[in-house]
């Protein structure tokens, strides 16, 4: 298990390096003088020259990359051009808002998806199973931005049950503000996870060890909950790990539609203003999050199912 974990984290580090380098090169390939865009039309030539030097934009691109990684290894992601605040501080100030949105979405969609999928598998070819199937496909097919707008109009404007914008203050208020955005970006995952669990569960329930358990006279509830679900849930763990990437991108539009702070909104604003230090800081953290979550999912998978340790 230890050697598997080491191999997996080495791979994660390599993925992070490649992804961040690619982003570094791509943002510099986008047309437009970043200094002019950042400082606006009225900046003095002296100020423009100073910022160009500060950001090392007068250096060859390979050197800029070396400087970036050199600073990063020392924990210095640079300074925001507009506010003079440290990029690390800015990014870590926004990160919790994105994380709470992603985790809230994962938790409710996984809980409901697993419940629906397991229940459908336990009642195959019944009305419940067919209803769950129709609902699951509908959830998967519903575009998240449409769900977001409709839920805003219904639950925030018409019924006024939940707030439309912001993140709130205090635990309950923050939870209240999470309901609609987490619902919007988690809904399609309910359907996806339900389908996945149902298929996986049906396969497991047909396996020899389940038949043996039944032959020994174990309670059906124990067979399903202890022996079948533990194995059937494995694909969900992997999917949730990969799903972090999807949810990170979904969080971008949720942060815009629900006017929430967060990493996604920060990246969009920074790319528009060519605020290179913040773009790179945000990309580094979000890519890191994605890479770590997929690695963790693989490790959990390997822990739950020893066969997986030899496959990577």
């Amino acid at each position: 298990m230890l050697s598997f974990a080491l191999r997996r984290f080495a791979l994660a580090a390599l993925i992070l390096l490649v992804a961040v380098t690619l982003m570094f090169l791509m943002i510099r390939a986008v047309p437009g003088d970043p200094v002019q865009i950042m400082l606006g039309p009225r900046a003095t030539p002296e100020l423009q020259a100073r910022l160009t030097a500060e950001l090392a934009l007068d250096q060859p691109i390979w050197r800029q990359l070396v400087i970036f990684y050199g600073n990063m290894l020392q924990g210095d992601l640079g300074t925001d051009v507009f506010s003079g605040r440290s990029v690390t501080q800015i990014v870590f100030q926004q990160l919790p808002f994105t994380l709470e949105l992603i985790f809230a979405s994962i938790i409710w969609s996984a809980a409901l998806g697993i419940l629906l999928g397991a229940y459908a598998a336990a009642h195959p070819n019944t009305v419940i199973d067919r209803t769950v199937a129709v609902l699951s496909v509908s959830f998967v097919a519903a575009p998240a931005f449409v769900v977001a707008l409709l839920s805003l109009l219904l639950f925030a404007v018409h019924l006024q049950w939940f707030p439309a914008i912001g993140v709130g203050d205090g635990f309950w208020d923050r939870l209240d503000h999470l309901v609609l955005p987490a619902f919007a970006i988690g809904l399609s995952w309910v359907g996806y996870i339900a389908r996945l669990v149902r298929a996986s569960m049906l396969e497991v329930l047909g396996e020899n060890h389940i038949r043996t358990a039944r032959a020994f006279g174990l309670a059906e509830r124990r067979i399903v909950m202890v022996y079948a679900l533990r194995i059937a849930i494995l694909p969900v763990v992997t999917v949730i790990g990969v799903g972090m990437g999807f949810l990170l991108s979904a969080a971008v539009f949720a942060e815009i539609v629900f006017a929430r702070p967060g990493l996604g909104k920060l990246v969009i604003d920074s790319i528009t203003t060519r605020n290179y230090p913040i773009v790179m800081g945000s990309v580094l953290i979000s890519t890191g999050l994605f890479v770590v979550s997929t690695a963790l999912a693989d490790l959990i998978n390997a822990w739950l199912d020893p066969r997986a340790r030899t496959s990577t």
Partner: protein
Amino acid sequence: MKIEWMKAPTGRRSFLKGATALGAAAAMPMGWAGHAFAQDAGTLRVRAYGDAPNMDPAHSVGVVEEEIHASIYNKLIQYKPGSEWGWQLDAAAMIEQVDPTHVKFALRDDIGFTNGHGAMTAEDVKFSFERIVADATESPNKPDMGPLSHVEVTGEREGTIVLNEPFAPLWSIALPYITGNIVSKAAVEAAGGRIGSDPVAESGPYLRASWSPKEKTVLQRNPDWKGDAPAWDTIEIYPIDDENTAEIAFEAGELDLTRVSLGSVARYRDGVPNGGTLVENPSLFYVWLGMNLDHPKLQNKKLRQAIQHAIDVPTILEASYFGAAEPSTGIIAPGLAGNRAQGMVAPQANIEKAMALLAESGETNVTLSLDILNKTTYTTMAQVIQAMLAQIGITLEINVLESGAFWASGDNEDLQLVLNRFSMAPDPSYATAWFTTEQAGIWNWERFRNEEFDQLHAAASAETDTAKRAEMYQRAQDLMEESGAYRFITHEATPVVHSSRVVPALRPDGLSLLRYFGKA
């Protein structure tokens, strides 16, 4: 195969009972029902277009930060809310232009700075204004202060602003806008000469209580403020870029005031939810179609004029602004000195004239490109223009660019036609400044070069006779239009909706003056 699992807890009745209990438990502490009614009677909630990370007026980037600065700092004079541009006294008890280059002022004796920085003095005014023009400050707002020489301190609270030459925008931009904010000399010097994202000392009717980046800024009544008491205890400012989101938040009762999209104006004219009101203000922005005079394809003036006459502005406005904006006659909006009652080319297209001009030009099989910003308004506008130019036989290719790439188009020599929109402060000099020869290839994307225009721009800034000044700016716009490089489209509009509990205080262009907001 039928498996009876988790029988007891998943029975229909049990499930319903459990779900109901869970729902009720979750909803109760959250104040589930009636969010709109949970609003605090003393809190005003408004939307801003963006976040305001900078509390230094010298480095303010525009109206979003100025909305906050104007509430937490004082100026000698402030804009007067209403439908006509004007100013009123703020920190000044008296202010008087004694000659074209000298302005005397006396400060009120009841304004103090927070954090123990004492009373506001003429030294603070001198420090605040002179640091804007000092090279060391590197303030992008330096041009707003124009030819400021220095501020002479003649008493503890008296002084004279001394200009190197007359400067008409002193009263319309320099003093009542961004550069007019007075900061505490002692506090700024103690902070190393620059204010960051936290104000080092405040003096206005409100204090910035908190700033949560990208979430909200909270202003609270300044307990030591001795002037007219502001109506609201607290102002919450939410940075929301997306107009549709802001509209939904307003309709959900979570905002008291927001600008709305022009596409929503017709809907709000039929009725504003929650007993609110729609206020339609003109805007100072100017939108135009520009033609790059340096491009080989656009050297023929008759061709450019054919394009001017082929474009039907009312149709563009109907399609892109849903009829909520009026055609413009130039770059200077109505209400400002220099606005032209009518342009040289009528807003309506004259296809016959356009075709005649094209024939006179001798150009055939003309294919041009039009660069636009990636916003629905501009793509619609571009498609309408494409159809109009097709009527006279000109093929138009549309290049849609994201904002960073679009705003870097100044040095793009291949640029042919461009749909552009510039923001504006309430003085005509702010508009003409971008079209001088010096700006060609920087912000003058048409590369319009005209010696008379340059002279008019320089002279009009120093002209203190309003009528003469207006004539100069009108002539400057005639020159722009005569060049064939411009088809003026609109100044847009600023529709704002507000809730029934608010009496808004807006500038004539619809922007908020938060410190003057009242309660209904």
